[in-house]
């Protein structure tokens, strides 16, 4: 082929790109409850994104396999690859929001950045956003953020749990202790600072901050200062992706005691400790779900896989992030179930599912009945409270597996709520939002 014809081919290609960009893919089937999945199976965060995505599709498939969907309405879903990139996340949202019989049920961005970008849009489109353990903490205020849910727990509450746990370890007081926060220098990593500063005044510990620039490959200086200069009693970490593995490794190499090093729930997956292997032994992190495979529902999913009905890579079953996605899926199906009580057993619109979320109460009894006992704590979401009073536990890496070492710990919400309210009020003022009335 000569250069000339190649050139025509190039021109034709450019035109055809424009022509095929129209998304006209029909929904999978009539009468499905459609759930868009924003996933990242490639890119820098793929090691974390893959088990998350696998957990979702396995759980939804399980619901269809076990009981033919929620209240007889089968679930359908479509994955859209975001590569953890905000723009692509927004594009995915726009692409998928009107799919299915009734549009998107709920959005799970699984990225604090994408959550921020979608809050305005989803509210406008009346589609709930469930940012489970990430996103804006102040979105717990359901009066200002009617369509955003932070259940079961926010970063601020996570910071509170960490401090509680450290205090308990120190025999009831943190007075005069030093705590260092190593955080990803982004919206996500900055979330806990205010809470930790506030608690420093109450508990009397000294807080030092160590931002780590994205993507977090460079932490030598940080850990030299921690290991040699600051010598804190505890290190808390808000890391993500490669930053976690690097931090664990560096902490070990400066000889920081691993059992005083506690990560947030995004810093405690298998991928974060595997590269450091033995050195990571003793490292702790929070988790919002139970650990391992010893739960009836997970066993059921294993059974489904044995019958050849599984969709995901079986190696991921029972991993930290897989379990988190299963719990996330469960919260969604429960909200849909609740909404069906009011609106009937048909594919529901986002707006209707929002009602389900606003009135969602997952009791201990219901959790046990569904086979999730120990996998999650009870939550109760109301119109004004979108956090749902969930809790977190502490887990530890034993060199092979993550092991839960505490039960679910409740954060001190009495102190947190005024903070949520104040921050949400500032947002409302800036955006000119009239808080809705929840009484």
């Amino acid at each position, binding site marked *: 082929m000569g250069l000339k014809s190649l050139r025509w081919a190039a021109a034709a290609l450019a035109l055809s790109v424009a022509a095929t960009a129209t998304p006209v893919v029909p929904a999978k089937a009539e009468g499905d409850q459609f759930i868009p999945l924003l996933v990242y*199976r*490639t*890119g*820098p965060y*793929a*090691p974390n994104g*893959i088990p998350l995505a696998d957990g979702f599709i396995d759980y939804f498939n399980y619901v269809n396999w076990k009981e033919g969907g929620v209240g007889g309405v089968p679930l359908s879903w479509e994955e859209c690859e975001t590569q953890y990139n905000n723009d692509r996340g927004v594009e995915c949202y726009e692409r998928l929001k009107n799919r299915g019989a009734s549009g998107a049920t709920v959005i799970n961005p699984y990225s604090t950045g994408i959550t921020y970008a979608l809050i305005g849009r989803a509210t406008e489109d009346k589609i709930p956003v469930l940012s489970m353990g990430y996103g804006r903490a102040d979105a717990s205020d359901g009066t200002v953020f009617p369509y955003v849910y932070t259940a079961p727990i926010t970063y601020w509450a996570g910071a509170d749990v960490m401090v509680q746990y450290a205090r308990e370890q120190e025999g009831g007081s943190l007075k005069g202790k030093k705590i260092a926060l190593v955080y990803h*220098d982004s919206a996500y990593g900055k979330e806990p600072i205010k809470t930790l500063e506030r608690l420093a005044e109450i508990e009397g510990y000294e807080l030092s*901050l*160590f*931002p*780590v*620039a994205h*993507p977090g*490959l*460079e932490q*030598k*200086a*940080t850990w*030299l*200062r921690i290991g*040699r*200069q600051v010598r804190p009693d505890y290190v808390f970490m808000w890391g993500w*992706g*490669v930053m976690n*593995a*690097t931090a664990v*490794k560096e902490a*070990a*190499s*400066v*000889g920081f005691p691993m059992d005083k090093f506690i990560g947030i729930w995004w810093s405690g997956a298998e*991928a974060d400790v*595997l*590269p*450091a*292997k*033995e*050195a990571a032994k003793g490292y702790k992190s929070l988790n919002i779900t139970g650990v391992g495979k010893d739960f009836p529902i997970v066993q059921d999913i294993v059974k489904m896989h044995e019958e050849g009905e599984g969709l995901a890579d079986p190696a991921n079953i029972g991993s930290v992030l897989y379990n988190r996605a299963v719990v996330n899926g469960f919260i969604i199906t429960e909200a849909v179930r609740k909404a069906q009580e009011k609106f009937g057993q048909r594919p529901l619109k986002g707006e209707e599912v929002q009602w389900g979320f606003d009135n969602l109460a997952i009791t201990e009894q219901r959790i046990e009945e569904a086979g999730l006992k120990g996998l999650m704590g009870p939550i109760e979401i109301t119109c004004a409270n979108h956090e749902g009073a969930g809790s977190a536990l502490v887990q530890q890496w034993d060199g092979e597996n993550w092991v839960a070492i505490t039960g679910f710990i409740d954060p001190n919400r009495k102190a947190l709520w005024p903070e949520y309210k104040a921050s949400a009020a500032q947002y409302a003022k800036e955006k000119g939002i009239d808080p809705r009335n929840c009484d």
Partner: protein
Amino acid sequence: MNLKHLAIGVVCSLGSIPVVGLLLQQLAEAAPNDIFFGWDFYIEVVVTGLLQGVMYALVALGFVLIFKASAIFNFAQGAMVLFAALAMVGFIEMGLHWTLAFLLAAVVMIIVAILIERVVLRPMVNQEPIILFMATIGIFFVLDGLGQTIWGSNVKALDIGISQTPWFVLQGEFFPGGLRLIPTEVVAAVVGALTVTLLAVLFQYTKVGRALRAVADDHQAALSVGIPLKFIWAIVWSVAGIVGLVAGVMWGTSLGVQFSLSLIALKALPVLILGGFTSIPGAIVGGLIVGVGEQVGEVFIGPLFGGAIQDWFAYMLAMIFLLFRPQGLFGERIIERV
């Protein structure tokens, strides 16, 4: 290669270490709340920086090789590092010993180099540098996608039998806790030094090396005396690929092999402008300066601004150097004619 320059560079950079230390000591006295200074601590930071610098230099070397021989700014070097490391881990997962896997990965990189030369470079001879630069970004995407397609996106541990427990040497009065050295980094430093010596010998004393230097000097003149340009390019890209593999192994053992490895290319850029795009010793000295500068900057100056200044600090350092020497420390003098 200009040994005199190299010597001056090394002496100057070594000499500046105590000077910077003294300055920092003064600064620490002025702002005792923010900055913590002790000579033992300072030395430890500098040593960490030097070792880190070698790791940067390993990545930068690949850039220099290609730029020297073909004036192409190879953005895909980072992706080549990742691809090579992934290939090696792939072979190890097939049950091979790591040495064998290393050799096979090197073969893979040679094949990749030949393909790049055939498919990309050959049709683009004589294009402007920026166009070639763009083409290497294209290569970056292809390698990234291909690597993940073949070996998956999960993080993989790479174990070549180097212990992860730090050594504490020189324990004594000056260093109460001992000077901390991480075995991986020490090995990397040794491997880096070996690589550079090997490349220097290759360039200086072999026939291919002479041809390489001729090509670097002037493509057309080299062609006219009968040097096979395409062959030389294939060689250079292969060597860059193998240097990338070495870098990938070193970074991979400490961080695990994963996508983020391809991002370390960005850390090599300030090294490049500092050392000069065309100088192999420049890459090493530049790497050391950036490594030390970054660590010292972050540890002692960072706290004044709230930290995480590493990213731009290296670039600013490099930019200030450039204002005095626009061709980098060891770059060839730019002579312009109308």
